[in-house]
């Protein structure tokens, strides 16, 4: 055994940020641009979409043709990491089912995300006053609105002003026009009484006013691979790399943070981390520490940061850290439109985010569950990839052949080859994403017995869906079916029933997990104040999904960005006033 020592950096930074995704990237961008010296620690390698994106590659340029062997969403997807990472396990308590997607790389999960950029609405922030089903945030929509506006202007989002009560409009670039299958969905939804609006996504359909560093969209539909032209939002391309150019932000990649180091005064002094390349232990000092390692990643760091002044873990005198973990509900249905068989070929790649969207506008007084979900739609003539055509032998017996006669499903030879052509681009898919109630009884905690390969104690998850989410999933299936029926589609996915919770996805599956260090006015029932500042430690902040009290049926990224920007401006203000 050689000497075991911790290398301490001599340099002291104004701010240390743990994580480089939406929350870390935005805080780093605002602070670095204000002249603050920032050190950003990222658990994965450096990633620049301009160089590292697999955009515009063809399936044959992957010998596995895009299969998901080493990347969960396929070989071309821009996420390093996945549901399981070698040497970095997590555990499940009792019969909990929970899945945790991690992307260890500069920009985190924002490199591959769906770019669907929705503001939470007034009722989402004040659920208790609205219907009593969920807890209130300590802030209102009106308090967050100026930051949503600034995020819209800084990053860019397309959409249309709709004037909906709980889906606030933003400052929008023009949305892309719908594809053919999306036009059929719009018609069918109208017949079925389901409201569908143009999508809202952070893709530059036009040049972003005032920004010369980013190109605009050239419509390849491959946002999930990350964009070489920086035409969609990734924290790497739009926030961290520009922040580095100020000279005020330094990134240390492959730095897996162990804990926040706390001084005798109980304040955060810095963080300790393992360098994944040399496996040595390091410690860096900063005046302020911001955690943005993902909701569960930050909760893990807080719970592992035990000290004499914070014996229960940092920011956890309330015992609330890890609790109120919640992911969006999810459900889906797939089918095909017989009228789109043998369709004319043309390029309909479009944008890689939602081109149309069904917002939640129903009245819950007539329903047996609180709040609701929005629907995202898919389908069309997409680039073939691993698994292509697998559905055709299962559905070619459902409609008459060219000769007008029904035939047996399956087959081979020229007739099957013709069917692959006939069905190409006729498919249609729907995915519901809804509000799940944040509950104290759904939580992550430190597994008392298990450490990862760096010796860091790992998370153990406890999560159960309740009647509210299951009934919502049932309603999703009914809505999907009504749209499918109204547009004359044939459903090909398996019917979902009570025995499988009406197709409700396992918690974690939707990758919208938030709520593990919720904000609030009362230090007994919240970890952070309304500025995402720890009640117990004034120079510690959390700017990822952890501060969420309750998410709506809205994908969380846009709210993470707005809150992180708000917190960064608060930090600047407090530094100026010498309060921190």
């Amino acid at each position, binding site marked *: 055994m050689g000497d075991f020592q911790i290398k301490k950096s001599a340099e002291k930074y104004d701010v240390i940020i743990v994580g480089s995704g939406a929350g870390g990237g935005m805080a780093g961008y605002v602070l670095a641009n204000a002249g603050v010296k920032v050190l950003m620690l990222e658990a994965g390698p450096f990633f620049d979409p*301009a*160089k*590292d*994106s*697999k955009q*515009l590659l063809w*399936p*044959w340029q*992957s*010998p*596995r*043709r*895009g*299969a998901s*062997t*080493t990347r969960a969403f396929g070989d071309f997807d821009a996420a390093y990491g996945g549901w399981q990472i070698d040497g970095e396990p997590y555990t499940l308590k009792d019969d909990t089912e929970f899945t945790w997607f991690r992307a260890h790389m500069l920009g985190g999960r924002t490199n591959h995300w769906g770019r669907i950029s929705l503001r939470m609405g007034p009722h989402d922030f004040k659920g208790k006053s609205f219907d009593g089903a969920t807890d209130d945030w300590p802030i209102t929509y009106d308090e967050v609105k100026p930051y949503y506006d600034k995020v819209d202007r800084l990053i860019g989002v397309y959409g249309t002003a709709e004037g909906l009560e709980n889906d606030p409009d933003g400052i929008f670039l*023009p949305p*892309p*026009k*719908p594809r*053919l299958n999306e036009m059929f969905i719009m*018609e069918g939804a109208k017949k079925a009484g389901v409201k569908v609006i*143009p999508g809202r996504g952070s893709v530059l*359909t036009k*040049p972003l006013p005032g920004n*010369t560093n*980013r*190109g605009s*969209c*050239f*419509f*390849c539909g*491959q946002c999930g691979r990350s964009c070489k*032209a920086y035409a969609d939002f990734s924290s790497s391309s739009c926030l961290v790399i520009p922040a580095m150019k100020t000279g005020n932000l330094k990134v240390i990649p492959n730095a897996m943070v162990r804990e926040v180091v706390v001084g005798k005064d109980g304040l955060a002094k810095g963080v300790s981390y393992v360098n994944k390349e040399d496996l040595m232990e390091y410690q860096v000092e900063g005046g302020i520490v911001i955690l943005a390692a993902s909701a569960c990643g930050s909760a893990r760091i807080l719970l592992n940061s035990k000290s004499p002044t914070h014996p229960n873990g940092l920011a956890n005198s309330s015992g609330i850290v890890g609790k109120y973990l919640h992911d969006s509900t999810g459900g889906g249905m797939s089918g095909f439109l017989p009228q789109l068989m043998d369709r*004319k070929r*043309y*390029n*309909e*790649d*479009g944008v890689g985010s939602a081109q149309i969207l069904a917002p939640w506008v129903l009245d819950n007084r007539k329903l047996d569950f609180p709040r609701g979900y929005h629907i995202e739609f898919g389908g069309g*003539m997409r*680039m*073939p*990839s*691993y698994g*292509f*055509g*697998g559905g055709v*032998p299962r559905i070619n*017996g459902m409609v008459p052949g060219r000769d007008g006669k029904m035939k047996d*499903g*399956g087959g*081979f*030879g*020229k007739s*099957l*080859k013709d069917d*692959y*052509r006939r069905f*190409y681009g006729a498919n249609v898919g729907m995915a519901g994403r809804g509000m799940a109630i944040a509950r104290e009884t759904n939580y992550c905690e430190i597994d008392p017995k298990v450490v990862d390969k760096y010796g860091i104690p790992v998370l153990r998850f406890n999560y159960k869906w309740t009647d509210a989410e299951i009934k919502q999933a049932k309603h999703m299936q009914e809505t999907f079916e009504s749209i499918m029926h109204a547009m004359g589609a044939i459903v090909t996915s398996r019917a979902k029933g009570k025995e499988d919770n009406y197709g409700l996805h396992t918690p974690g599956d939707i990758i919208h997990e938030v709520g593990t260090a919720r904000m609030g006015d009362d230090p007994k029932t919240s970890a952070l104040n309304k500025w995402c500042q720890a009640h117990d430690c004034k120079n510690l902040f959390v700017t990822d999904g952890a501060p969420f009290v309750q998410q709506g049926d809205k994908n969380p990224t846009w709210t993470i960005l707005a809150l992180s920007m708000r917190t960064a401006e608060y930090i600047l203000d407090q530094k100026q006033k010498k309060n921190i």
Partner: protein
Amino acid sequence: MNRRQSLKAIGLSTVSAGVLLEACKTGNDKAVAAVPSKEEYGDADLTGLEDFEKERLKELHKRPSFFNDHERQTLIVLGDLIIPKDDVSGSASDAKVIDFIDFIVKDIPDHQVPLRGGLKWLDLQCLNRYGHSFVGSNENQQLEILEEIAYPAKVKPEMQQGAVFFDRLRNLVATGFYTSQIGIKDLGYVGNVPGKWDGVPADVLAQYNLSPVSYGV
């Protein structure tokens, strides 16, 4: 027309085109520094791959085929029965589907036993019926046995194992074919190029009796 002009022609802003050209030129630094040999990585593009992904590719390419010559030959014959040459395009073997299957069974070992066992099952069926292996049987015999395993709803109970094998193989052949240049051309997929999306073309709207939408880029 040079490349920059052609990008402009399709409506890309100068910034987009500039960034894109720059990005195309730069490529992956490491990959450029050490040009990957086809021998080591096959046709794989190494852009943005993590080290472990490159190592894995190299290791899989080095490894000998999982299949023996007879199995390979049987897979080639089956592939061409599933996707034969027709008026539009070539066959599975023209698209080198066997090379994809060869790689994917190393990459996803879960395919190995069902494929090897299925091939053996098929040979045994043919041997009992026709006195030859599948490739040794004549085409009518080959078609006769495929008829019994290719239509899931009418497969006899004693042929179910064959049907499950055939379904797996059929899907792998379809993937291998339609992700090849020949297959993509056959399907008529014309995307994956920088362009401009302006909604459904007018003639297609007319074909389906749809009105153009009033919004858009």
